[in-house]
């Protein structure tokens, strides 16, 4: 799969992990093939699927490919799947292959609200298995050693460079578009070739001066925030206990982060008092995925976590209801949004 979709099928689809994929391919003859299929359908009832097997399972919900499968058959079936997806969703698609493939593009579909009790393993992710983990480790070490580091990323279709300018500038210089960064973040690290190089003093100084004068790149926090959000994709870092209250140590620097109003609402609630994340979603009436995404990003910046204090676990009263001036504040917020829209034009 990696050879086909990294080579002749490069224009067709790209491999990615299950959470980021918009279609899947399952090898039914795999020892866990049947349970993979059942699990896939349970989690993604409407996601397009290709099943490969020696025997036709007569599935109504998937396209079938009889093994052995040639490269041409696979690519033509994927093309058919893409056409179906485009017709139904009018978006370009991402695809999963057994574990996965994507063609980046289009904003992700609106994610569903999920009930706490339905959280499954794939509602969690391990940052260490993605570019995010590598970046966080690099940031930590380059900050400690006070050095500038260049990270080379080779994916199936391109090479990219990321410079971490630490610790004085705390800036990241790169030429990745939003789509490219999102795609890299969604790709399991084992599919990427990552190499790091420490920059010499002279090269480092030259780059720092240039970055400072020309305002190259973006602040480190903004970059890490984006990386964590793209990687999380509405999931939580592995090991997060969602039944315990989550804390936010302080407000993120929202003027320099790509964040929406809901992120500020979540922050406002969490800095007041640690709350379980499902309660935050319920109180603010927003998707649990959005809360998870916020938490994952704030966690990556080191300002959010799960409270270990007993007092936070015992004080779990519902937050108070909206204040008396709710209507006035709502009108003022509306006016600010108008002004903000004018500013961005």
């Amino acid at each position, binding site marked *: 799969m990696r050879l086909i979709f990294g080579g002749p099928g490069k224009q067709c689809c790209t491999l990615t992990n299950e959470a980021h994929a918009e279609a899947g391919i399952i090898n039914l003859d795999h020892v866990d093939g049947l349970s993979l299929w059942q699990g896939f359908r349970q989690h993604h009832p409407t996601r397009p699927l290709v099943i490969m097997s020696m025997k036709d399972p007569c599935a109504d919900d998937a396209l079938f490919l009889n093994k052995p499968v040639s490269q041409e058959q696979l690519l033509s079936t994927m093309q058919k799947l893409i056409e179906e997806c485009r017709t139904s969703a009018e978006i370009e698609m991402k695809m999963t292959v057994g574990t996965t493939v994507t063609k980046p593009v289009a904003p992700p579909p609106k994610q569903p609200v999920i009930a706490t009790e339905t959280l499954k393993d794939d509602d969690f992710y391990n940052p260490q298995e993605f570019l995010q983990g590598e970046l966080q480790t690099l940031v930590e070490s380059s900050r400690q050693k006070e050095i500038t580091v260049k990270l080379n990323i080779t994916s199936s279709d391109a090479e990219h460079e990321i410079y971490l300018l630490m610790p004085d500038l705390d800036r990241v210089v790169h030429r990745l578009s939003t789509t490219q960064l999102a795609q890299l973040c969604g790709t399991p690290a084992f599919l990427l070739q990552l190499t790091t190089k420490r920059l010499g003093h002279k090269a480092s100084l030259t780059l720092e001066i240039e970055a400072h004068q020309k305002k190259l790149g973006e602040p480190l926090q903004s970059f890490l925030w984006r990386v964590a959000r793209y990687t999380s994709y509405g999931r939580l870092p592995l090991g997060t206990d969602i039944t315990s209250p989550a804390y936010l140590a302080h407000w993120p*620097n929202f003027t320099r982060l790509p964040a929406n109003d809901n992120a*500020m609402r979540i922050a406002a609630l969490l800095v007041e008092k640690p709350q379980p994340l499902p309660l935050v979603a319920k109180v603010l009436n927003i998707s649990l995925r959005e809360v998870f995404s916020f938490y994952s990003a704030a966690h990556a910046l080191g300002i959010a976590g799960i409270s270990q204090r007993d007092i936070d676990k015992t004080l779990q009263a519902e937050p108070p209801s909206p204040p008396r001036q709710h209507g*006035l504040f709502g009108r003022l917020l509306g006016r*600010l949004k108008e002004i*903000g829209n004018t500013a961005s034009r």
Partner: protein
Amino acid sequence: MKNHKIIFTGPVGAGKTTAISAISDIPVIGTDVNAQDMTIHRKATTTVAMDYGLMGLEGNDRIHLYGTPGQERFDFMWDILTQGGLGLILLLDNSRSKPLQDMRFFLGAFKAFIASQKVAIGVTRMDLAQGPALEEYHRELRQLNLNPPLFEVDARQRHDVVTLLKSLLFSLDPWLD
């Protein structure tokens, strides 16, 4: 028609007048005079009474935007200005000699108001000098047992001022949608 107000405060040169101008429906009415005292080292003119801007809302409500004069000798006006205010915007100039001390001073001066309402803090001129990082402000705030919104702000950028004001609103009412 109902009238409400939001107060902008902070030391001389922190960008209060500029921030109010960024969001006011009317040209800011100022009371600037040529700087005579130490202020002259920071800017040519300074506000001696207050700045005034206005935002009109749906339903004919009006939000009056008041900027306090930066010099401490005008602090007798601050209590009067804050009466009935919805919230406080504190702007700090990171290029001043002791911005953390400035923060402590203003949070102390408006302590009673902040206890009943909310404050949002914008730190300006962070790109101009090697002043404290935001983390140092947060550390200082923790010692004061406060955890308000605190952002890097360019008072000339409407987006920054709007974000700061939104954070003040969400602090007062996270249920806003």
